């Protein structure tokens, strides 16, 4: 019909918004990233971070997506992701159900570091590492949770950061049940099977 309903937020968010880590395992095909992100766009769910890479199983890609939203909405998004023809499985986890990490790189003017007497203390305190030192700049690396990489950012920013970059989250579950690898054993390693003549 030519008329539409105005869809209001129906307040179906019992626990309030919180951070969820969504992981999806898919075939390694062109366009799947797009198919997955469309699901978020359509439902107005913002993606906080996204990491895509090959999984432990050859030919299977893993998407790790962090969102801050209601559990009810996240559940539905995960169902829609799993519904995609080329997605094998999708899961979602709360913060305490996963062990997660991000990596950050900081490029700082070497001169500023040399002039300061706090560099050693800063690097030590954060357990950061120096990757490269050149006369013009030094590159420092830190892995940790977002709050940790942010804390180092705030300190190094005083030296005049030249560049800063942070990766998306990667995560493994705390549970000892390996749901996905068991699923893979069940479905086998041939992605498409055809009838024989």
């Amino acid at each position, binding site marked *: *019909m*030519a*008329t539409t*309903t105005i869809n209001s937020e*129906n307040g179906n968010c019992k626990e309030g918004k919180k951070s969820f880590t969504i992981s999806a395992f*898919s*075939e390694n095909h*062109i*366009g799947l990233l*797009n*198919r997955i992100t*469309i699901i978020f766009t*359509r439902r107005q769910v913002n993606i906080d971070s996204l990491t895509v890479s090959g999984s432990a199983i050859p030919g299977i890609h893993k998407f790790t997506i962090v969102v801050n939203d209601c559990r009810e909405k996240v*559940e*539905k998004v995960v*169902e*829609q992701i*799993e*519904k995609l*023809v*080329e*997605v*094998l499985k999708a899961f979602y986890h709360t913060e305490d159900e996963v062990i997660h990490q991000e990596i950050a790189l900081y490029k700082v003017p070497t001169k500023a570091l040399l002039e300061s007497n706090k560099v050693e203390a800063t690097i030590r305190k954060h357990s950061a590492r120096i990757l490269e030192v050149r006369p013009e700049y030094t590159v420092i690396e830190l892995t940790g949770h977002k709050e940790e990489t942010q804390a180092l950012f705030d300190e190094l920013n005083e030296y005049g950061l030249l560049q800063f970059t942070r990766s998306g989250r990667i995560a493994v579950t705390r549970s000892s049940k390996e749901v996905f690898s068991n699923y893979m054993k069940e*479905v*086998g*390693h*041939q*992605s*498409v*099977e*055809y*009838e*024989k*003549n």
Partner: protein
Amino acid sequence: MKATKETETTTIDIPNKIRVTGAEAIMLSLIQEGVDTLFGYPGGAIMPAYDALMNYTDKLRHILTRHEQGAIHAAQGYARVTGKVGVCMATSGPGATNLITGIADAMIDSTPLVCITGQVAAGLLGTDAFQETDVIGISMPVTKWNYLITKPEEIPAILAQAFYIAKTGRPGPVVVDIAKNAQFGMLDFEYHKCKRMRSYAPEPRISLDNLKAATSLINSAKKPYILAGQGIILGGAEQEFLQFVEKSGIPVGWTILGACALPKDHPQNIGMLGMHGNYSANIKTNECDLLIGVGMRFDDRVTGDLSRYAKQAKIIHLEIDKAEINKVVTADVPLHGDVKDTLPLLTKMIEKRDHSAWIRAFREADKIEYETVIQHDLHPVKPGLTMGEVIHLINEGTKGDAIVVTDVGQHQMFASRYAFHKNPRSFVTSGGLGTMGFGLPAAHGAKIGCPDKQVILFVGDGGFQMTIQELGTINQTQAAVKIVLLNNKYLGMVRQWQQLFFDKRYSETYLLNPDFIKVAEGFGIKGKKVLERPQLAQAIQEMLDHNGPYLLEVSIEKEDNVFPMVPTGASVSEVILEQKK
């Protein structure tokens, strides 16, 4: 020319590995999938395929439409009445974008389609070449699956996957975009149908625990109520459903796409659900103690205000698409599976029951609807023809044996409520998307798919003009579509809303229409216009008896409204039966 054609599945023996062009491989693959009919429109990037088509005209009937939207809606109509995969073909760029409305319609209404589009040569992708559009990107949100073929040797395997995905599980549209170089290039052709994909599980395993839980709810319910959806028809489970309904004794309401799930004259058939559904079918939703959704998705037009929808009832939801379970309404017992498999198991487990007292409560409410709405629609005493009486008279002529197709708007709601059809797959309408312009091409596709059936199209004067060029296609095939144009000179549904909810401010809903009979005549189609009640019955008979396509235009009372109505935001208990004076 007669529009009949042999419809048996034709496959030809292909010697192992023959050397062919990609374009020929497309045709051979279609034949291997049992396709005998396709709808389309040629153009630059699909020309090699059209050239190859000429070598297979004995196996593949191609219907040249007047617009790609006409091709895809025809393929939808064809798929809906035959249960086969509808196939359409178009060129790149504008050809492909003209398919999009139909693809979106097929997606939301779960219609199996394979759409083949031409694409610029692989080397030109991303260069803004002539008629290059990112068809994969554009169609992604509205397809079940899509794929861009850039090499000829991909063609058979990808088309095999396309057909498999389109028709299994919850069906849907698939787009296969084929670069021109892949059509020109050579390959060693051999064909194997797709059997399985590890990432896709179209046949869910049914939970025995949930079956037991559902059985105990059904056995102990005092006022159970079944909501029948298109899943029953898509699963070909009409018989299984009938057995379940008769053993359980439970009354059945249906969604607009579930109209053929149970014969309309079955004693347990209560009527249509939703915004313009039947009075009892809606209000009893909020009185039942158990709601059993079968192959339906609790669309907002069905549920009205969710916070006041069946809160008193336990809910069992039979559904093949796991993402539909708990999407809108939380199920107490989900039965994830194909209803074709689930229903016989349930029927076996439940006890035979009689709910005739509960059904009588529906019938009492029906009397209210009959007195306030139905008798005025079907047997008006005022001057001015109603849509209801036209449909009612046509029912008397067809005896329920016709396929009924509608466009979108007021006439669609009248046809859903009043058209009598007793066979499976005999009601075709655009449900989820509400696509005006769907009717005429869909009716054509339905007639091509079922040439021996009478096909009646109900269409309004607004929607008719959206795809009126398909009269040209119909003239070319001579498919005997009977077009019933219910002309009220308005975009009637929008006008009704303006009258009821926008203070009678009729913004842009009046249409200055052409002489439709002359237009049809110009397309070579015979027609007649009826202005007065006394001429109606005779004119309908002439239309039904006419051997060939026919336009019957009926001048309808301008300001008639569709009732009952559950207004947007209201609960299914708050049905408006008549207009406040």
